């Protein structure tokens, strides 16, 4: 925007000419412009809905208590269509709508977590003809309707409402990420749409669930029931001290908070806690401090973007605590492909291993055979899959596409899924159904080491030192 002195005069002359026509903004022009735009907007508004349907009486008088709970005081009369459409058209498919981050920073999670699951699962179900709906006396295949919310919460809420209100999808599948769940759950609940979540889950959602009867959370998390199991394992091996690095957001705060409660219970002293800003590039100061503290256990409660450099830096600096626990990141196949055999002994969160049962192996084969190793996710994938299975079985058991009835089935009944006997307790997937909580990389396999009764291998403690080339 800087101008050279010599050309300034000439330019200001030109600009003056330009300005003469624009500055004298007459009333006429203004009104014309505004009217034009207004008319344009009206046309645009009319375009997507050529036949405006009768007014939708959705009285949403919602009252909020002081805490983050959304309680409905006035229950609305029939919100949006439930199952069977009023049109004469025969129902020949189940339309499932989703707002997913197909672009933007969350795409990396969505693409590797829920997407491979639902794609494989839907194909499997449709190949078998679809879901049996008793009341219509036939099997209906599933049709997916996916929108890109650009990893933006505001867009996601708007698209969720579009799916429910305009596209009138039969069912809603979840958005990606804990904060997205927080934003989406009240909406799904308000319109009476069952929402079985996939990626995301946090302690704080436990408080919300009672007021959100339509929402069901599948993913395991800190105190449900990972960290208590971890603390047990560590205490048993005689670990006495820990150093925690956590990412400065909901996830990290929660995990570090829960650790702060569970660890001391089992006699583990926390020597240091460091918060990492999400954009941190260089973790060496934190690792060095952890090293200096000489703690037995090192915990990194963050995301792949931090856990990978944390691992790398630990290797570079030769930091070898007796136990190295990492959050989301360690449980993915790309952790192994990135670091190779060096990860021997690193611990993380998990749910299953192909060794545990025939069904587990079948699932692993279905999802991972013939595909690049990076896509493996030993923590989330079985839970999301189980969630979908429960959803399908609930529809079949309820015999209808009516959300309320399906909700009731999901709330009360047990289901047989890839995890075995699975059910929801207060909206959360029962921890007894979890076939694993803590995992450890041993000989290039992510073994389940805790809880003991579900373990596929014994915990190796202390962790072998990083290899030095």
């Amino acid at each position, binding site marked *: 925007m800087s101008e050279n002195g010599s050309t300034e005069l000439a330019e200001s002359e030109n600009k003056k000419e330009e300005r003469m026509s624009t500055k004298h903004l007459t009333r006429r022009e*203004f009104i014309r412009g*505004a009217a034009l735009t207004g*008319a344009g907007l009206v046309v*645009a508004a009319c375009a997507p*809905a050529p036949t405006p349907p009768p007014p939708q009486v959705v009285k949403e008088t919602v009252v909020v208590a002081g805490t983050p709970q959304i309680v409905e005081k006035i229950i609305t009369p029939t919100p949006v269509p439930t199952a069977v459409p009023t049109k004469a058209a025969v129902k020949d498919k189940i339309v499932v709508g989703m707002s997913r981050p197909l672009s933007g920073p969350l795409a990396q999670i969505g693409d590797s977590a829920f997407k491979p699951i639902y794609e494989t699962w839907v194909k499997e179900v449709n190949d078998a003809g679809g879901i049996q709906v008793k009341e219509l006396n036939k099997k209906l295949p599933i049709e997916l309707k996916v929108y890109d919310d650009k990893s933006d919460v505001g867009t996601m*809420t708007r698209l969720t409402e579009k799916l429910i209100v305009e596209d009138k999808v039969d069912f809603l599948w979840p958005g990606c990420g804990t*904060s997205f769940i927080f934003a989406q759950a*009240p909406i799904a609940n308000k319109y009476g749409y069952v929402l079985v979540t996939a990626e995301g889950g946090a302690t704080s959602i436990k408080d919300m669930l009672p007021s959100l009867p339509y929402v069901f959370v599948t993913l395991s998390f800190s105190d449900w029931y990972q960290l208590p199991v971890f603390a047990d394992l560590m205490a048993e091996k005689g670990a006495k001290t820990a150093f925690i690095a956590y990412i400065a957001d909901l996830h990290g705060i929660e995990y570090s908070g829960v650790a702060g409660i569970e660890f001391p219970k089992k006699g583990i002293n926390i020597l240091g806690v460091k918060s990492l800003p999400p954009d941190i590039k260089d973790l060496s100061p934190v690792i060095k401090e952890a090293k200096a503290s000489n703690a037995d256990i090192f915990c990194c409660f963050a995301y792949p973007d931090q856990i990978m450099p944390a691992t790398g830096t630990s290797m570079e600096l030769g930091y070898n605590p007796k136990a190295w626990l990492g959050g989301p990141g360690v449980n993915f196949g790309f952790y192994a492909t990135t670091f190779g055999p060096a990860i021997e002994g690193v611990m993380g969160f998990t749910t299953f291993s192909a060794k545990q049962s025939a069904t587990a192996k079948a699932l692993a084969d279905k999802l991972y055979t013939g595909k690049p190793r990076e896509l493996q996710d030993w923590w989330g994938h079985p839970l999301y899959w189980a969630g979908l299975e429960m959803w399908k079985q609930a529809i079949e058991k309820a015999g209808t596409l009516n959300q309320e009835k399906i909700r009731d089935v999901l709330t009360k009944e047990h289901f047989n899924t890839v995890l075995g006997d699975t059910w929801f307790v207060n909206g959360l997937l029962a921890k007894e159904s979890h076939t694993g909580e803590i995992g450890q990389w041993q000989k290039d396999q992510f073994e389940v080491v805790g809880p003991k009764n579900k373990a596929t291998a014994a915990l190796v403690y202390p962790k072998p030192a990083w290899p030095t080339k």
Partner: protein
Amino acid sequence: MNRVRVSLKQLLWLGLLGVVLILFGLGPRYAPMYTIILLTAIFMYIILTLSWVIFSGPTGYVSLAPAAFFGVGIYTSAILGKALPLLIVVAVGGLASSCLALFAGGLTLRLKGIYFAIFTFGLVELIKNLLLWWEIHFTGTRGRFVIVVDYATVYYVMFAILVVLILTAYLIRRSKFGLALQSIGDNEQAAAHIGINVTALKVVTFAVSAFFTGAAGAIMATRWTYIDPYIAFNPLFSFMPVLMAIFGGLGQFYGPIIGATIFGYLEELLITRFPYYYMLLFGTIMVVAILYLPNGLVGLIQKVTARLRVLARSQPAPAATSEAK
């Protein structure tokens, strides 16, 4: 310009305007719910763009602070939403943003051009990171829930903000202030020499433009349900108004409005119809628009209307009123 004589043409336009206003007012009663929701989002884009243009248009100071003002509005809503009535919250959101603008504007008096732009951008990131750190270490909050407001109310409030904004923008542009702002844009030193209080004018206009952005943020937050510093202070909301304004064209008053509308609608179309290619298509359209429509959509419209006029003139027309433009 002869203000007294009201021509038939002006009456017709005024009538059209009135009809448009009534149509929008009746929207929630007769239009499908999602259309209203989408319109609310488009209104928000227009507000962001037009309020940006109020300051950055005439003065030439490219501001990348809209995200900061928007975020302040969002946070106001999150913090005060449960305690105060909605309209007050919206107004407070706007005022808080104005205060931020006054503060930031006051600081950056001497910065010009690219430095001003980068500074305002830094402001967004600074507030975001500071707020995150503060929330973790002092208030212990992990995200906030915003009160829920029904879609029709949000629509009306947003529409009201938009109308007031358009009026304000028009009045500023038509008044002495607009003239003064323009002269600051042309040659700030000369403007100071002829007695314009450049400092005060810049800061005040900056604050005025921030007010609307903040108010829009405050009301929009109620649609988002859940927010945290990263969601509220998203740098993308700083770039978007600039893009939309230039896309629309800065020459005419209605340029930014058209730019924002088309932009918003285009985005909606792309994320729903072509979800996996949204960025590619969007980016391509942007590049093509910049390369072939250097004056934005306004330039395109002007070319088209000029051509239409030539066509009209080439036909034998009885006593056509000379349009000396």
